[in-house]
C-alpha cells in the first residue's frame, strides 16, 4: 500500500516527466498541475504543452503561451490569494511550423539551401503535415530545454500529443526521419549531371518508366518540387539523427519518468495498459498512473442514512418522489465510485503495484479549471491522499 508521498517522491526523482495518454482525459491540465507541484516543492520547472490550449494559458494566468517560454509570475498567484511557489514555473507551447523554422535556421549548414528550403511551397505542408512531425519537434524542443545552460531547468514536464495506440510518441520521430532520409532518397538525390548541370536522377532525360507512370498520377512537376525539397534538406540529416539519439538517451535515463494519464473507464484503461506494455517493451518503467475525473464516493466518510433524508425532504416541503430520485442519484454515485475503485485495483494488479508505481484515482473537481486557483485545486487533488488499495474507503454498514 503506497503512502501518499510516493507520487511526490517519484516527482522529486524526475528530471524529465513525460505525460502520455489518450485524448480527452485531461492530460494537458494534469501536466500543468504536476509542474505546479514541482514548483511548489522548490524546483525550476517548465511545462511543455502540445495542444494549442488557450485555456491552459488562462489557467496559468498567462496572456498566451507560444513557442517562447513564459514564466508564471508570483503576482499571478498572489492576485488569487494563493501562496507563490518556492520554485519557478514556466510554460511553453509547441508550434510545429515555428519549431521547424527554428531548427532549419539553427542547424542548416548552407545559407543558400536554407533560404530556398524555407521558400519551398511544399515545405510548409511537409513540415506540418508529415506524420510524426509534431512528435519529432517535441523531441527537438525537449533536447533544447534539457541541454540549455542558461537558467538551467530542474524538471521538464512534457505533455505529449494524444495517441490512442501504443506510444506513437516514441516511434514517430524515427519514422519521420526514415521518411526524409532513406535508400530511396539517397539514390534519388545522388548528384547526377545532365547537360552540364547537376540535377537529381529524377529529371534525367531517360528517367524510368516507373517514374513516368507515377508522373501520370501526380504530375511530374510535383515530383520535381518534392525532389528539390528533399535535396534542400541535405546536410541536416546527420544532426537530426544525432539529436534524436540524444533524446532517446534522455528518455531511457532513470531520471526520466513516464506518467500515464487516463480515466477510470474501460477504454481509457485499456489504452493506459497498451502504453504500459509498449513502454515496458522498451525497458522504460511507468512512474505513475493517474485516473482522472474519478467519482468521489459519497459514503467515503459518512454511512448511508436514507430514512433521515426522506424525513428531512418531506419536512422542508419536498415530495416523496424527490426523495426517491435523490436516493437514486446518491446510490448511483456510490456505485460508480465503487466500480472505479475496482478498475483501479485491477489495473494496479496488472501492472504490479509498488511504491515506485502509484496508481491513483484523481477525484473530479466540482468546477472547470480556468485559473490558477482551479489548477491549484487539481494539484491538491492529484497529490492528496488516496484511499488505500483493495479496501473499501469506510467499513460502512451495507444497505439492505
Amino acid at each position, binding site marked *: 500500500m503506497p503512502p501518499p508521498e510516493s507520487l511526490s517522491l517519484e516527482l522529486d526523482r524526475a528530471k524529465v516527466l513525460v505525460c502520455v495518454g489518450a485524448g*480527452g482525459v485531461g492530460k494537458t491540465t494534469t501536466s500543468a498541475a504536476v509542474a505546479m507541484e514541482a514548483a511548489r516543492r522548490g524546483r525550476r520547472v517548465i511545462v511543455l504543452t502540445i495542444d494549442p490550449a488557450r485555456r491552459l494559458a488562462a489557467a496559468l494566468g498567462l496572456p498566451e503561451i507560444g513557442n517562447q517560454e513564459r514564466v508564471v509570475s508570483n503576482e499571478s498567484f498572489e492576485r488569487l490569494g494563493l501562496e507563490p511557489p518556492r520554485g519557478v514555473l514556466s510554460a511553453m507551447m509547441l508550434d510545429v511550423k515555428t519549431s521547424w523554422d527554428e531548427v532549419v535556421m539553427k542547424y542548416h549548414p548552407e545559407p543558400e539551401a536554407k533560404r530556398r528550403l524555407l521558400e519551398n511551397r511544399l515545405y510548409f*505542408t511537409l513540415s506540418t503535415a508529415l506524420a510524426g512531425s509534431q512528435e519529432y519537434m517535441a523531441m527537438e524542443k525537449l533536447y533544447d530545454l534539457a541541454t540549455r545552460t542558461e537558467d538551467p531547468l530542474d524538471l521538464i514536464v512534457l505533455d505529449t500529443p494524444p495517441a490512442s495506440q501504443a506510444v506513437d510518441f516514441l516511434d514517430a520521430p524515427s519514422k519521420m526521419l526514415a521518411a526524409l532520409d532513406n535508400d530511396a532518397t539517397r539514390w534519388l538525390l545522388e548528384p547526377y549531371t545532365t547537360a552540364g548541370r547537376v540535377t537529381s536522377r529524377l529529371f534525367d532525360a531517360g528517367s524510368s518508366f*516507373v517514374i513516368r507512370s507515377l508522373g501520370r*498520377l501526380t504530375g511530374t512537376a510535383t515530383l520535381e518540387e518534392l525532389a528539390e525539397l528533399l535535396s534542400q534538406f541535405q546536410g541536416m540529416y546527420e544532426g537530426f539523427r544525432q539529436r534524436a539519439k540524444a533524446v532517446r538517451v534522455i528518455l531511457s535515463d532513470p531520471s526520466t519518468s513516464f506518467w500515464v494519464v487516463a480515466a477510470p473507464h474501460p477504454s481509457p484503461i485499456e489504452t493506459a495498459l497498451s502504453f504500459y506494455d509498449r513502454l515496458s517493451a522498451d525497458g522504460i518503467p511507468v512512474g505513475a498512473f493517474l485516473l482522472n475525473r474519478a467519482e468521489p464516493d459519497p459514503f467515503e466518510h459518512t454511512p448511508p442514512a436514507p430514512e433521515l433524508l426522506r424525513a428531512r425532504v418531506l419536512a422542508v*416541503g419536498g415530495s416523496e418522489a424527490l426523495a426517491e*430520485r435523490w436516493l437514486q442519484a*446518491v446510490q448511483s454515485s456510490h456505485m460508480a465510485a465503487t466500480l472505479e475503485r475496482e478498475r483501479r485495483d485491477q489495473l494496479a494488479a496488472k501492472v504490479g503495484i509498488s511504491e515506485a508505481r502509484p496508481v491513483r484515482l484523481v477525484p473530479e473537481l466540482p468546477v*472547470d479549471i480556468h485559473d490558477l486557483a482551479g489548477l491549484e485545486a487539481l494539484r491538491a487533488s492529484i497529490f492528496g491522499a488516496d484511499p488505500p488499495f483493495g479496501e473499501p474507503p469506510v467499513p460502512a454498514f451495507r444497505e439492505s
Partner: protein
Amino acid sequence: MLGKGGVGRSVFSAALALRASQRGKRVLLLEVNAPDEAARILQVAPAPDDPREVLNNLWLCRMTPTGAMREYALLVLKFKAIYHIVFENRLVKYLLRSIPSLGEFTMLGKAWYHAEERRSDGSPRFDLVIIDAPATGHALTFLSGARAVADTVPVGPMKAAAERMAELIEDPRRACFHLMSLPEEMPVSEARDLFAAARDRVRMHAGLAVMNRVRARRFSVQDEPIVRALAAEAEPALLPYTEVAVREMKRHAARDAHLGRFREVTMGPLVCLPELPTEDVGPEELELIIGALDEACGVRPELETLDATA
C-alpha cells in the same frame, strides 16, 4: 462527421447510416476514423476496401490511404500489371508517402468517386455517403486536401481531380458536415474552432450539431430550493446526500453553459444524445441514439437536410 477524438463520431455515424438506410436510402458509410468500429457496432463482418452491402441498403467500406491510392492508381494506369511494376517499386512507395496530404487526398477522391458513382441505368449508386472523418486536425487536413492539392500542386491530373472534389465539398446542395461534441469545456472550445474552420476554411455547409453524453437532469429547477435548504442545514449525517445533489446541480449548470457555448457558433438542428449506460454499443444503444436523432429532427425537416447530402 466531424469532431474531436473520443466524442463518439463512429457510433453516431453508424446510427445515422442505419437510420437513413431504414428510410429507404441507399447509404454508404466510409470509415476513415476507426476501421472496423462501425462493423462492430452494427454487428456485421468487418468492411473490405470496396463497398459491401452489410445490411439492407447499407454499404460499409473501410478507407485507408494505401487502399485508396491503389484504387486511384488503377483508375489512371488502367492495367493491373503496370500498377504492380510501378507500385511495388520501393522508390515509388517512398515518393507517394512523402507527398504531403496525398493519402488524405486519395481518400477524399474515393469518397467523391462513390458519391458520383452511377449504376448501369444511370441512377446514383448511393443516395447518401457518410464519412466518419478522422479527429479534428486530421479532419481539416482531410477535407482541405482537395483545395490544398488544387492550389499547391502544379498542373496535372491530380490538380484537375482536386478541383472537382473541392467543388463537391463546397456545394451546399450536395455536401455538408455534421459536428459532434461533448458538453465539456475543451471539447466545446475545439468544436467551436472546428466549426469555424470547416465553414470558413473548407467552405463547407453546416449540417447537424450533435451533443453527445448529455446527462439526464436528476434535479429539476423546482427541486433546487429544497436541495439548497437541506444543504444549508449542514447536517453531518446527510453530507453524502447534499454533496451529491449540489455536485449534480453544478454539473447541470455547467452542462447547460457548455451547450450554450456550442449553440452560440453552430447552426443547424441540435441533436442531444443521452449518456449511454455502456461503452459497448450494440443494437439497443443504436436504437436509443436513433430515437434521440428522430426526436431532435422533429418529423422530417432535418432528415431532409441529410437527404440533401448525396
